């Protein structure tokens, strides 16, 4: 684990570079929503590239950003010269993910439907579910939610999901801190200038 402050500095550096590269300051005609999207995307990508593409979540974040068509150009602009190396790192993810996603959806649907039927039968026959299975179901539900929250989490097993969540939380926290600092700094500047 790196030092938090050096991490934040690197993040801020990358973020601002990304904002520069996507021509943030030149386009004065951007609407607020566009600007917000650019800021958020650049912040996310800066966070991912600060992680250097070594973890699943950062690779998935970059892959997700460049998969979406409207974001693709923006993402490439933001990533700039690093995009090649990072893309290379993350390029192993998307095709595998896509094919697996389609295949696994079918299987999932089939298995889910049969499972539901089975569960219903079970519930009808024995109305009392054991506490153990209830707890397991609760945990599974929450795990699925967590998987949807962490980028690239759908394709992780439990152990790596928790590890990635740890890492992701640390970086999110750094991101939030830096963004809050910048936001309050701009507020101060506004107050001073007014």
């Amino acid at each position, binding site marked *: 684990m790196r030092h938090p402050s050096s991490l934040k500095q690197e993040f801020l550096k990358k973020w*601002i570079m990304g904002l520069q590269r996507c021509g943030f*300051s030149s386009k004065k005609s951007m609407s607020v929503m566009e600007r917000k999207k650019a800021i958020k995307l650049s912040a996310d990508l800066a966070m991912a590239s600060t992680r250097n593409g070594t973890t699943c979540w950062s690779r998935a974040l970059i892959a997700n950003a460049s998969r979406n068509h409207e974001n693709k150009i923006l993402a490439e602009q933001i990533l700039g010269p690093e995009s090649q190396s990072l893309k290379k790192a993350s390029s192993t993810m998307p095709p595998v993910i896509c094919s697996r996603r389609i295949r696994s959806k079918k299987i999932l649907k089939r298995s889910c439907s049969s499972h539901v039927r089975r569960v219903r039968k079970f519930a009808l026959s024995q109305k009392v579910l054991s506490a153990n299975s209830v*707890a397991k179901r609760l945990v599974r539900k929450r795990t699925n*939610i967590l998987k949807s*929250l962490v980028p690239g989490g759908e394709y992780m097993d439990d152990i790596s999901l*928790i590890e990635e969540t740890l890492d992701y*939380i640390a970086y999110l926290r750094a991101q939030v801190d830096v963004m809050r600092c910048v936001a309050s700094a701009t507020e*101060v500047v*506004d107050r001073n200038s007014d």
Partner: protein
Amino acid sequence: MNRGYIQEEMLHCTDMTVLERQRARMKWHEDQLQQGYFGGSGEFCGGGGVFQGHEGHHQVQNFQGLVGTGGGDLVLGEVVSQSVKVVDPAGLKNRWAELGRLELTDMGFESCGLVNGTSSEFEMTAGAISTTSSCPPKVVVAAAAEQKGKVSVPVGKESSKKRKADKVQHTQVVVEDEPKDKRSKLCAEDGESKITGQTSTKNTTANNNNNNRESSSDTSKENSKASEVQKPDYIHVRARRGQATDSHSLAERVRREKISERMKYLQDLVPGCNKITGKAGMLDEIINYVQSLQRQVEFLSMKLAAVNPRLDFNIEDFFGKEMFPACSTSFPTIGMSSEMTNPAYLQFNPAQVVACCGLEMGINSSDMALRRTISAPVSIPETYIDTPCFTQPPPSSTWDADLQNLLNLEFHQGRSTSFPSQPFTGSIEASNLKMEM
């Protein structure tokens, strides 16, 4: 000779970690709350991070022993006390007491070693660690017993007495052959009684010297035998009575342990997750936290977007100017003071503002510019330069160490209000307010 000692110690350390693993595992089964989280070293290193921390800690102790022989006697005491301080807030709750005892015993031994002032300090520390970790001493003990013959008489007397006391207790532990979890508790008691034994042996006369030596060698032999008998038990995965032993369930158990270990780390990282037991509740808390962080990012980017028309990020303009040569000296501490902008400290608005500016200045000096081109762009940096803080490196250098410590702790504590951080934050706020003046 030195190298031999170091190797022995290393051997011992690795051995010890296996044992530690055993003990910790027992404790997991026994009570989830008794798990300790050692943040000292590996916070995020995947595998047995807990044990790595432990091992690292003990190695550090060993190292201190080695360094102490070089000369700085006072330094040793300080370092030990520092290590106590560092480990102290690292999120240990129940394990803390035990560890504190461990360290106390270590300290005691080291101080005795200082009294001796000879090469026997090596064994002293090694022995201390071996005994406190409830590891039956094997190679090191034998070597130490041999070594004691060579050392001058008073030294040999003292140390062998201590050793004897330890060994007697160890053999008691081994012979009684109690269940493992009890044993781990016993070892803590062991550590305590060792201190008392130590102090008492200082007062005794030289008459019992030879007897002590003989008995100590005897007990060491017994110990080594016992450890040989016990050794096959120490495998990575083991099933307790009544548990399935086929490979699948063993693997499943390992997996579950891994998950619970990482959940433990998460629990320490996510604020307000400490009191929750049960995986579902913990996951709930984690989900909430991640969601809140993501929402904060959304909100902040929205806020920045709304503020932004007048905000301009401009690099090339800045590189030609080189405005803040003086800031680079005080940069690291100020940069770190931005760490204090936790939500807990948000109510201290002036402090936070200064911290933010500190961050900005830090980035300025590290050849990155976040510069605002507004109606009066030059006035802001000037006001900051006028503040006395930036021209006074000495006070900032004194904060440096504190902040380093604080930042090391930051991750473990999360945002939970914790006692050691309070004085530091207080000082930082005060200094920030000074900066404002």
